[in-house]
Protein backbone atom coordinates (compact mmCIF):
# COMPACT_ATOMS: atom_id res chain seq x y z
CA UNK A 1 0.00 0.00 0.00
CA UNK A 2 1.63 3.23 -1.10
CA UNK A 3 0.38 6.67 -0.12
CA UNK A 4 0.72 9.26 -2.87
CA UNK A 5 1.19 12.93 -2.05
CA UNK A 6 -1.99 13.61 -4.03
CA UNK A 7 -4.04 11.48 -1.64
CA UNK A 8 -2.16 12.81 1.39
CA UNK A 9 -2.90 16.38 0.40
CA UNK A 10 -6.55 15.69 -0.43
CA UNK A 11 -7.08 14.34 3.09
CA UNK A 12 -5.12 17.21 4.67
CA UNK A 13 -7.44 19.90 3.43
CA UNK A 14 -10.74 18.01 3.84
CA UNK A 15 -11.70 16.86 7.34
CA UNK A 16 -14.45 14.65 5.87
CA UNK A 17 -11.86 12.77 3.85
CA UNK A 18 -10.51 9.73 5.79
CA UNK A 19 -6.78 9.61 6.49
CA UNK A 20 -5.01 7.61 3.77
CA UNK A 21 -4.66 3.86 4.46
CA UNK A 22 -1.11 2.65 4.95
CA UNK A 23 -0.22 5.11 7.73
CA UNK A 24 0.28 3.66 11.20
CA UNK A 25 1.80 4.35 14.60
CA UNK A 26 4.79 2.22 13.57
CA UNK A 27 3.24 -0.92 15.07
CA UNK A 28 0.32 -1.57 12.76
CA UNK A 29 -2.33 0.62 14.40
CA UNK A 30 -3.92 3.02 11.86
CA UNK A 31 -2.80 6.60 12.41
CA UNK A 32 -5.99 8.62 12.55
CA UNK A 33 -5.34 11.24 15.19
CA UNK A 34 -1.69 11.19 14.16
CA UNK A 35 -2.73 12.26 10.67
CA UNK A 36 -4.83 15.00 12.27
CA UNK A 37 -1.61 16.58 13.58
CA UNK A 38 -0.69 17.46 9.99
CA UNK A 39 -4.25 18.59 9.21
CA UNK A 40 -4.12 20.85 12.23
CA UNK A 41 -0.64 22.17 11.43
CA UNK A 42 -1.66 23.17 7.92
CA UNK A 43 -4.93 24.85 8.92
CA UNK A 44 -3.53 26.58 12.01
CA UNK A 45 -0.32 27.81 10.38
CA UNK A 46 -2.17 29.23 7.36
CA UNK A 47 -4.83 30.79 9.60
CA UNK A 48 -2.12 32.42 11.73
CA UNK A 49 -0.46 33.71 8.56
CA UNK A 50 -3.75 35.32 7.53
CA UNK A 51 -4.32 36.84 11.00
CA UNK A 52 -0.86 38.40 10.72
CA UNK A 53 -1.44 39.52 7.14
CA UNK A 54 -4.87 41.12 7.64
CA UNK A 55 -4.88 42.77 11.08
CA UNK A 56 -7.52 45.32 10.07
CA UNK A 57 -9.96 42.70 8.78
CA UNK A 58 -9.28 40.59 11.88
CA UNK A 59 -10.10 43.59 14.06
CA UNK A 60 -13.25 44.50 12.11
CA UNK A 61 -14.89 41.06 12.04
CA UNK A 62 -13.52 39.67 15.32
CA UNK A 63 -11.27 36.71 16.08
CA UNK A 64 -13.83 33.87 15.94
CA UNK A 65 -15.36 35.02 12.68
CA UNK A 66 -11.99 35.73 11.09
CA UNK A 67 -10.63 32.27 11.92
CA UNK A 68 -13.74 30.56 10.57
CA UNK A 69 -13.54 32.65 7.40
CA UNK A 70 -9.79 31.93 7.10
CA UNK A 71 -10.65 28.21 7.11
CA UNK A 72 -12.79 28.75 4.02
CA UNK A 73 -10.24 31.04 2.35
CA UNK A 74 -7.22 28.80 2.86
CA UNK A 75 -9.01 25.83 1.26
CA UNK A 76 -10.04 27.90 -1.75
CA UNK A 77 -6.71 29.68 -1.98
CA UNK A 78 -3.83 27.69 -0.53
CA UNK A 79 -0.51 29.50 -0.98
CA UNK A 80 1.06 29.14 -4.40
CA UNK A 81 4.54 30.00 -3.12
CA UNK A 82 6.60 29.22 -0.03
CA UNK A 83 7.27 32.95 0.36
CA UNK A 84 4.49 33.46 2.88
CA UNK A 85 5.03 37.23 3.27
CA UNK A 86 2.91 37.66 0.14
CA UNK A 87 0.19 35.12 1.00
CA UNK A 88 -3.38 36.36 0.73
CA UNK A 89 -3.39 38.40 -2.49
CA UNK A 90 -6.82 36.90 -3.31
CA UNK A 91 -8.34 38.16 -0.05
CA UNK A 92 -9.97 41.36 -1.41
CA UNK A 93 -11.75 39.45 -4.19
CA UNK A 94 -12.69 36.70 -1.73
CA UNK A 95 -14.22 39.24 0.69
CA UNK A 96 -16.15 40.93 -2.12
CA UNK A 97 -17.80 37.56 -2.90
CA UNK A 98 -18.13 36.02 0.57
CA UNK A 99 -21.86 36.13 1.36
CA UNK A 100 -21.56 36.28 5.18
CA UNK A 101 -19.82 39.69 4.87
CA UNK A 102 -22.03 41.08 2.09
CA UNK A 103 -23.30 43.69 4.60
CA UNK A 104 -19.71 44.99 5.05
CA UNK A 105 -18.92 46.03 1.46
CA UNK A 106 -15.87 48.09 2.48
CA UNK A 107 -13.91 45.06 3.75
CA UNK A 108 -12.33 44.30 0.36
CA UNK A 109 -10.82 47.80 0.16
CA UNK A 110 -9.60 47.69 3.77
CA UNK A 111 -7.96 44.33 2.95
CA UNK A 112 -6.20 46.11 0.09
CA UNK A 113 -4.68 48.49 2.65
CA UNK A 114 -3.43 45.53 4.73
CA UNK A 115 -1.93 43.96 1.61
CA UNK A 116 -0.34 47.24 0.52
CA UNK A 117 1.24 47.73 3.97
CA UNK A 118 2.86 44.31 3.84
CA UNK A 119 4.13 44.83 0.30
CA UNK A 120 5.48 48.24 1.31
CA UNK A 121 7.29 46.68 4.28
CA UNK A 122 9.16 44.28 1.97
CA UNK A 123 9.50 46.62 -1.03
CA UNK A 124 12.90 47.46 -2.47
CA UNK A 125 14.85 50.28 -0.84
CA UNK A 126 15.06 53.52 -2.81
CA UNK A 127 16.71 56.89 -2.49
CA UNK A 128 14.00 59.50 -2.08
CA UNK A 129 14.15 62.93 -3.70
CA UNK A 130 15.73 65.35 -1.25
CA UNK A 131 13.26 68.18 -0.55
CA UNK A 132 16.11 70.71 -0.71
CA UNK A 133 17.07 69.54 -4.22
CA UNK A 134 13.48 70.02 -5.19
CA UNK A 135 13.42 73.45 -3.59
CA UNK A 136 16.43 74.53 -5.64
CA UNK A 137 14.52 74.20 -8.92
CA UNK A 138 13.43 77.53 -10.41
CA UNK A 139 9.65 77.96 -10.17
CA UNK A 140 9.26 78.32 -13.94
CA UNK A 141 11.05 74.97 -14.48
CA UNK A 142 8.90 73.00 -12.04
CA UNK A 143 6.20 72.08 -14.55
CA UNK A 144 8.66 70.09 -16.67
CA UNK A 145 10.03 68.02 -13.76
CA UNK A 146 9.21 64.30 -13.58
CA UNK A 147 9.73 61.58 -10.96
CA UNK A 148 9.40 57.90 -10.33
CA UNK A 149 7.40 56.60 -7.39
CA UNK A 150 9.33 54.69 -4.72
CA UNK A 151 8.73 50.91 -4.91
CA UNK A 152 6.82 51.01 -1.61
CA UNK A 153 4.26 53.58 -2.86
CA UNK A 154 0.74 52.28 -3.37
CA UNK A 155 -2.67 53.91 -3.63
CA UNK A 156 -5.94 52.35 -2.53
CA UNK A 157 -9.06 54.13 -3.80
CA UNK A 158 -12.48 53.36 -2.45
CA UNK A 159 -16.10 54.53 -2.53
CA UNK A 160 -16.05 53.95 1.26
CA UNK A 161 -14.31 55.93 4.04
CA UNK A 162 -11.52 53.35 4.21
CA UNK A 163 -8.98 55.64 5.86
CA UNK A 164 -11.34 56.30 8.75
CA UNK A 165 -12.31 52.63 8.96
CA UNK A 166 -8.64 51.60 8.94
CA UNK A 167 -7.90 54.16 11.68
CA UNK A 168 -10.86 52.91 13.70
CA UNK A 169 -9.15 49.49 13.89
CA UNK A 170 -6.26 51.33 15.55
CA UNK A 171 -8.52 53.06 18.06
CA UNK A 172 -9.65 56.02 15.94
CA UNK A 173 -13.14 57.48 16.08
CA UNK A 174 -16.18 56.58 13.97
CA UNK A 175 -15.80 56.95 10.20
CA UNK A 176 -17.21 59.75 8.10
CA UNK A 177 -19.54 58.86 5.26
CA UNK A 178 -17.34 60.03 2.41
CA UNK A 179 -15.35 58.07 -0.18
CA UNK A 180 -11.65 58.06 0.65
CA UNK A 181 -8.37 57.28 -1.09
CA UNK A 182 -5.23 56.44 0.83
CA UNK A 183 -1.52 56.62 0.13
CA UNK A 184 0.84 53.95 1.45
CA UNK A 185 4.51 54.88 1.71
CA UNK A 186 7.59 53.72 3.63
CA UNK A 187 9.71 56.68 4.77
CA UNK A 188 12.35 54.39 6.30
CA UNK A 189 11.38 50.92 7.50
CA UNK A 190 7.82 51.36 8.77
CA UNK A 191 5.01 51.83 6.25
CA UNK A 192 2.66 54.79 6.72
CA UNK A 193 -0.98 55.26 5.66
CA UNK A 194 -2.12 58.79 4.76
CA UNK A 195 -5.51 60.07 3.68
CA UNK A 196 -5.22 61.57 0.21
CA UNK A 197 -7.01 64.84 -0.57
CA UNK A 198 -9.41 64.91 -3.55
CA UNK A 199 -7.43 64.54 -6.79
CA UNK A 200 -4.45 63.05 -4.96
CA UNK A 201 -4.91 59.54 -6.31
CA UNK A 202 -5.13 60.82 -9.89
CA UNK A 203 -2.04 62.95 -9.37
CA UNK A 204 0.06 60.02 -8.09
CA UNK A 205 -1.22 57.81 -10.88
CA UNK A 206 -0.07 60.39 -13.45
CA UNK A 207 3.34 60.80 -11.81
CA UNK A 208 3.66 57.01 -11.70
CA UNK A 209 3.18 56.67 -15.45
CA UNK A 210 5.89 59.26 -16.09
CA UNK A 211 3.87 62.44 -16.61
CA UNK A 212 5.57 65.70 -15.74
CA UNK A 213 4.55 67.64 -12.66
CA UNK A 214 2.76 70.15 -14.92
CA UNK A 215 0.81 67.50 -16.83
CA UNK A 216 -0.13 65.62 -13.64
CA UNK A 217 -1.30 68.87 -12.05
CA UNK A 218 -3.38 69.70 -15.10
CA UNK A 219 -5.07 66.27 -15.12
CA UNK A 220 -5.78 66.46 -11.39
CA UNK A 221 -7.16 69.99 -11.65
CA UNK A 222 -9.39 68.81 -14.50
CA UNK A 223 -11.06 66.45 -12.01
CA UNK A 224 -10.77 68.58 -8.89
CA UNK A 225 -10.70 72.32 -9.67
CA UNK A 226 -9.34 73.35 -6.24
CA UNK A 227 -6.67 70.63 -6.30
CA UNK A 228 -3.93 71.52 -3.76
CA UNK A 229 -0.60 70.72 -5.42
CA UNK A 230 1.55 72.26 -2.67
CA UNK A 231 0.03 70.19 0.13
CA UNK A 232 0.31 66.97 -1.83
CA UNK A 233 3.92 67.58 -2.89
CA UNK A 234 4.81 68.33 0.71
CA UNK A 235 3.28 65.02 1.80
CA UNK A 236 5.01 63.11 -1.00
CA UNK A 237 8.42 64.59 -0.14
CA UNK A 238 7.98 64.05 3.61
CA UNK A 239 7.08 60.41 3.06
CA UNK A 240 9.91 59.73 0.62
CA UNK A 241 7.39 58.77 -2.05
CA UNK A 242 9.28 60.34 -4.97
CA UNK A 243 12.55 59.11 -6.50
CA UNK A 244 14.61 59.81 -9.63
CA UNK A 245 13.92 63.51 -10.12
CA UNK A 246 14.44 64.33 -13.78
CA UNK A 247 14.17 67.68 -15.52
CA UNK A 248 14.45 68.55 -19.14
CA UNK A 249 17.88 69.72 -20.34
CA UNK A 250 18.27 73.51 -20.18
CA UNK A 251 17.98 75.19 -23.60
Amino acid at each position, binding site marked *: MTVSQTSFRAALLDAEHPAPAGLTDGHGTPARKRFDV*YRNNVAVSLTEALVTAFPSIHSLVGDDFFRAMAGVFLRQHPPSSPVM*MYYGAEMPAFLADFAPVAHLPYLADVARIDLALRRAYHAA*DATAVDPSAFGAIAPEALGAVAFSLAPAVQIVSSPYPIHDIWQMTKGGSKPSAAAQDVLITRPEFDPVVDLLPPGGAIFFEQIGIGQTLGAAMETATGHVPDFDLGGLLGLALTRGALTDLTRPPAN
Partner: protein
Amino acid sequence: MLDACFDTLPPLPGVGYKPQHYREILSEPGSVAWLEVHAENYMGDGGRPLAQLQYLSQQFPLSIHGVGLSIGGEGDLDRAHLDRLRKLCDWAKPASFSEHLAWSTHDAHFLNDLLPLPYTEATVARVADHVSQVQDHIGRRMLLENPSSYLWFEESTLSETDFLAEVAKRTGCGLLLDVNNVFVSATNLKMDPRAYIDAFPMELVGEIHLGGHDEDEDEHGAPLLIDSHGAEVVDPVWALYDYTLDHAGPKPTLIEWDTDVPDWPVLRAEADRAAQALTRVPA
Protein backbone atom coordinates in the same frame (compact mmCIF):
# COMPACT_ATOMS: atom_id res chain seq x y z
CA MET B 1 39.51 39.70 7.56
CA LEU B 2 36.60 39.51 9.97
CA ASP B 3 34.48 37.66 7.45
CA ALA B 4 36.92 34.76 7.45
CA CYS B 5 35.76 33.82 10.97
CA PHE B 6 32.21 33.43 9.69
CA ASP B 7 32.88 30.68 7.14
CA THR B 8 31.78 27.93 9.51
CA LEU B 9 29.41 27.67 12.44
CA PRO B 10 31.43 27.35 15.66
CA PRO B 11 30.68 24.36 17.96
CA LEU B 12 28.83 26.69 20.32
CA PRO B 13 25.20 27.71 20.91
CA GLY B 14 23.22 29.78 18.43
CA VAL B 15 19.60 30.90 18.43
CA GLY B 16 16.87 31.27 15.87
CA TYR B 17 16.89 35.02 15.25
CA LYS B 18 13.68 36.93 15.97
CA PRO B 19 13.45 40.66 15.18
CA GLN B 20 12.12 41.45 18.68
CA HIS B 21 15.53 40.39 20.08
CA TYR B 22 17.60 42.57 17.73
CA ARG B 23 18.78 45.15 20.25
CA GLU B 24 19.45 42.68 23.06
CA ILE B 25 21.47 40.34 20.85
CA LEU B 26 23.62 43.24 19.72
CA SER B 27 23.98 44.74 23.20
CA GLU B 28 25.09 41.44 24.79
CA PRO B 29 28.07 40.36 22.70
CA GLY B 30 29.09 36.80 23.42
CA SER B 31 25.65 35.70 24.60
CA VAL B 32 25.26 33.60 21.47
CA ALA B 33 27.92 32.57 18.97
CA TRP B 34 25.82 32.47 15.79
CA LEU B 35 22.32 33.03 14.43
CA GLU B 36 19.91 31.10 12.25
CA VAL B 37 17.15 32.60 10.11
CA HIS B 38 14.42 31.03 8.01
CA ALA B 39 15.28 31.68 4.37
CA GLU B 40 11.72 32.45 3.31
CA ASN B 41 11.42 35.39 5.73
CA TYR B 42 14.23 37.18 3.88
CA MET B 43 12.97 36.88 0.32
CA GLY B 44 11.46 40.34 0.08
CA ASP B 45 13.08 43.06 -2.00
CA GLY B 46 14.22 45.34 0.82
CA GLY B 47 13.16 47.05 4.01
CA ARG B 48 13.93 46.23 7.62
CA PRO B 49 14.33 42.41 7.36
CA LEU B 50 17.15 42.63 4.82
CA ALA B 51 18.75 45.66 6.51
CA GLN B 52 18.86 43.79 9.84
CA LEU B 53 20.14 40.61 8.24
CA GLN B 54 22.89 42.50 6.46
CA TYR B 55 24.05 44.06 9.72
CA LEU B 56 23.79 40.81 11.68
CA SER B 57 25.74 38.96 8.98
CA GLN B 58 28.67 41.29 9.71
CA GLN B 59 28.51 40.51 13.43
CA PHE B 60 27.72 36.77 13.53
CA PRO B 61 28.20 33.59 11.54
CA LEU B 62 24.86 32.92 9.94
CA SER B 63 22.90 29.78 9.22
CA ILE B 64 20.19 30.02 6.57
CA HIS B 65 17.53 27.40 7.17
CA GLY B 66 14.98 26.79 4.42
CA VAL B 67 11.47 25.70 5.33
CA GLY B 68 9.77 25.71 1.93
CA LEU B 69 11.80 23.85 -0.69
CA SER B 70 9.83 20.58 -0.51
CA ILE B 71 12.89 18.38 -1.08
CA GLY B 72 10.77 15.28 -0.45
CA GLY B 73 8.12 16.32 -2.98
CA GLU B 74 7.05 13.97 -5.77
CA GLY B 75 7.18 16.82 -8.25
CA ASP B 76 10.15 18.80 -9.51
CA LEU B 77 11.80 21.38 -7.27
CA ASP B 78 10.49 24.93 -7.74
CA ARG B 79 13.05 26.64 -9.98
CA ALA B 80 11.96 30.12 -8.92
CA HIS B 81 12.46 29.15 -5.29
CA LEU B 82 15.89 27.67 -6.02
CA ASP B 83 16.79 30.99 -7.65
CA ARG B 84 15.58 32.91 -4.59
CA LEU B 85 17.68 30.67 -2.32
CA ARG B 86 20.76 31.17 -4.46
CA LYS B 87 20.25 34.94 -4.47
CA LEU B 88 19.86 35.00 -0.68
CA CYS B 89 22.91 32.79 -0.09
CA ASP B 90 25.03 34.80 -2.53
CA TRP B 91 24.01 37.99 -0.75
CA ALA B 92 24.13 36.94 2.93
CA LYS B 93 27.07 34.50 2.55
CA PRO B 94 25.93 32.22 5.36
CA ALA B 95 28.26 29.75 7.05
CA SER B 96 25.64 27.06 6.53
CA PHE B 97 22.53 26.30 4.50
CA SER B 98 20.10 23.60 5.59
CA GLU B 99 16.69 22.22 4.64
CA HIS B 100 14.33 19.45 5.72
CA LEU B 101 13.68 15.84 4.83
CA ALA B 102 10.02 16.64 4.13
CA TRP B 103 7.63 17.85 1.46
CA SER B 104 5.38 20.90 1.55
CA THR B 105 4.41 21.67 -2.05
CA HIS B 106 2.24 19.56 -4.34
CA ASP B 107 0.76 20.63 -7.69
CA ALA B 108 2.04 24.17 -7.08
CA HIS B 109 0.18 24.43 -3.76
CA PHE B 110 2.33 25.19 -0.73
CA LEU B 111 0.92 23.68 2.47
CA ASN B 112 3.16 25.49 5.00
CA ASP B 113 4.01 22.35 6.96
CA LEU B 114 6.80 19.79 6.90
CA LEU B 115 5.01 16.69 5.63
CA PRO B 116 6.35 13.14 5.93
CA LEU B 117 7.46 10.71 3.28
CA PRO B 118 7.96 6.94 3.14
CA TYR B 119 11.50 5.61 3.29
CA THR B 120 12.00 3.40 0.25
CA GLU B 121 14.57 2.90 -2.51
CA ALA B 122 12.41 5.09 -4.75
CA THR B 123 12.22 7.98 -2.29
CA VAL B 124 15.94 7.78 -1.51
CA ALA B 125 16.62 8.21 -5.22
CA ARG B 126 14.20 11.15 -5.49
CA VAL B 127 15.46 12.97 -2.39
CA ALA B 128 19.10 12.42 -3.40
CA ASP B 129 18.34 13.81 -6.84
CA HIS B 130 16.71 16.89 -5.30
CA VAL B 131 19.52 17.45 -2.78
CA SER B 132 22.06 17.29 -5.62
CA GLN B 133 20.02 19.84 -7.60
CA VAL B 134 19.95 22.18 -4.60
CA GLN B 135 23.68 21.89 -4.02
CA ASP B 136 24.43 22.43 -7.72
CA HIS B 137 22.07 25.39 -7.91
CA ILE B 138 23.24 27.30 -4.84
CA GLY B 139 26.85 26.22 -5.27
CA ARG B 140 27.39 24.93 -1.75
CA ARG B 141 27.00 21.82 0.37
CA MET B 142 23.76 21.66 2.33
CA LEU B 143 22.68 19.98 5.54
CA LEU B 144 19.53 17.82 5.52
CA GLU B 145 17.48 17.72 8.74
CA ASN B 146 15.71 14.70 10.25
CA PRO B 147 11.96 15.33 10.68
CA SER B 148 9.67 14.91 13.65
CA SER B 149 7.31 12.03 12.85
CA TYR B 150 3.78 11.43 14.04
CA LEU B 151 3.13 8.35 11.93
CA TRP B 152 4.87 5.64 9.92
CA PHE B 153 4.34 4.61 6.30
CA GLU B 154 3.73 0.87 6.04
CA GLU B 155 5.48 0.91 2.67
CA SER B 156 8.77 2.07 4.25
CA THR B 157 11.60 -0.41 3.90
CA LEU B 158 14.45 1.67 5.34
CA SER B 159 15.05 3.16 8.76
CA GLU B 160 15.25 6.94 8.86
CA THR B 161 18.93 6.84 9.83
CA ASP B 162 19.76 4.50 6.93
CA PHE B 163 17.74 6.73 4.61
CA LEU B 164 19.59 9.88 5.66
CA ALA B 165 22.99 8.15 5.52
CA GLU B 166 22.25 6.91 1.99
CA VAL B 167 21.17 10.37 0.77
CA ALA B 168 24.35 11.84 2.25
CA LYS B 169 26.46 9.13 0.64
CA ARG B 170 24.96 9.75 -2.80
CA THR B 171 25.04 13.55 -2.65
CA GLY B 172 27.87 14.51 -0.31
CA CYS B 173 25.44 16.57 1.77
CA GLY B 174 25.83 16.92 5.51
CA LEU B 175 23.14 16.32 8.10
CA LEU B 176 21.38 18.49 10.64
CA LEU B 177 20.46 16.43 13.68
CA ASP B 178 17.38 17.75 15.48
CA VAL B 179 17.58 16.04 18.88
CA ASN B 180 14.08 17.16 19.85
CA ASN B 181 12.75 15.64 16.62
CA VAL B 182 14.49 12.37 17.52
CA PHE B 183 12.81 12.40 20.92
CA VAL B 184 9.40 13.31 19.45
CA SER B 185 9.59 10.66 16.70
CA ALA B 186 10.91 7.94 18.99
CA THR B 187 8.15 8.57 21.53
CA ASN B 188 5.44 8.71 18.87
CA LEU B 189 6.65 5.59 17.04
CA LYS B 190 7.54 3.75 20.27
CA MET B 191 11.23 3.41 19.49
CA ASP B 192 14.39 3.94 21.55
CA PRO B 193 15.78 7.44 20.94
CA ARG B 194 19.28 6.37 22.03
CA ALA B 195 19.26 3.59 19.44
CA TYR B 196 18.46 6.27 16.83
CA ILE B 197 21.41 8.37 18.03
CA ASP B 198 23.65 5.27 18.03
CA ALA B 199 22.73 4.63 14.39
CA PHE B 200 23.10 8.24 13.24
CA PRO B 201 26.20 9.01 11.14
CA MET B 202 27.65 11.61 13.53
CA GLU B 203 30.64 12.37 11.32
CA LEU B 204 28.19 14.04 8.87
CA VAL B 205 26.48 16.25 11.46
CA GLY B 206 27.13 19.94 10.83
CA GLU B 207 24.56 21.29 13.27
CA ILE B 208 22.25 20.21 16.07
CA HIS B 209 18.77 21.62 16.76
CA LEU B 210 17.07 21.74 20.16
CA GLY B 211 13.52 22.94 20.69
CA GLY B 212 10.33 22.48 22.64
CA HIS B 213 7.33 20.29 21.90
CA ASP B 214 3.70 19.89 23.03
CA GLU B 215 2.31 16.75 24.66
CA ASP B 216 -0.90 15.04 23.58
CA GLU B 217 -2.29 11.50 23.26
CA ASP B 218 -3.59 9.58 20.28
CA GLU B 219 -7.09 8.04 20.27
CA HIS B 220 -5.70 4.91 21.96
CA GLY B 221 -4.14 6.81 24.85
CA ALA B 222 -0.59 6.49 23.50
CA PRO B 223 1.62 9.56 23.92
CA LEU B 224 1.64 11.87 20.91
CA LEU B 225 4.30 14.58 21.05
CA ILE B 226 3.99 17.50 18.65
CA ASP B 227 6.96 19.54 17.52
CA SER B 228 5.97 23.14 18.29
CA HIS B 229 9.15 25.21 18.77
CA GLY B 230 7.00 27.05 21.27
CA ALA B 231 8.41 26.07 24.67
CA GLU B 232 11.55 25.29 26.65
CA VAL B 233 13.59 22.21 25.83
CA VAL B 234 12.43 19.46 28.23
CA ASP B 235 14.84 17.58 30.52
CA PRO B 236 14.66 14.24 28.63
CA VAL B 237 15.72 16.09 25.46
CA TRP B 238 18.62 17.75 27.31
CA ALA B 239 19.63 14.26 28.48
CA LEU B 240 19.44 12.95 24.92
CA TYR B 241 21.52 15.96 23.82
CA ASP B 242 24.21 15.04 26.38
CA TYR B 243 24.13 11.48 25.07
CA THR B 244 24.45 12.81 21.50
CA LEU B 245 27.42 15.03 22.39
CA ASP B 246 29.15 12.06 24.02
CA HIS B 247 29.00 10.34 20.61
CA ALA B 248 29.44 13.33 18.33
CA GLY B 249 31.73 15.68 20.23
CA PRO B 250 30.84 19.39 20.38
CA LYS B 251 28.65 20.61 17.51
CA PRO B 252 27.05 23.97 16.66
CA THR B 253 23.76 23.82 18.54
CA LEU B 254 20.68 25.90 17.83
CA ILE B 255 17.86 26.75 20.21
CA GLU B 256 14.71 26.96 18.06
CA TRP B 257 11.79 28.94 19.43
CA ASP B 258 9.40 30.08 16.69
CA THR B 259 5.94 30.38 18.26
CA ASP B 260 5.04 32.19 21.51
CA VAL B 261 8.54 33.65 21.28
CA PRO B 262 9.76 34.49 24.81
CA ASP B 263 11.64 37.51 26.07
CA TRP B 264 15.34 37.44 25.34
CA PRO B 265 16.52 36.34 28.83
CA VAL B 266 14.47 33.11 28.54
CA LEU B 267 15.96 32.26 25.16
CA ARG B 268 19.42 33.22 26.34
CA ALA B 269 19.07 30.90 29.37
CA GLU B 270 18.38 28.02 26.98
CA ALA B 271 21.49 28.91 24.98
CA ASP B 272 23.49 29.09 28.24
CA ARG B 273 22.33 25.61 29.16
CA ALA B 274 23.50 24.31 25.77
CA ALA B 275 26.84 26.10 26.33
CA GLN B 276 27.30 24.25 29.63
CA ALA B 277 26.60 20.92 27.97
CA LEU B 278 29.05 21.73 25.18
CA THR B 279 31.78 22.77 27.65
CA ARG B 280 31.59 19.39 29.33
CA VAL B 281 32.42 17.51 26.11
CA PRO B 282 36.03 17.11 24.94
CA ALA B 283 36.55 18.34 21.40
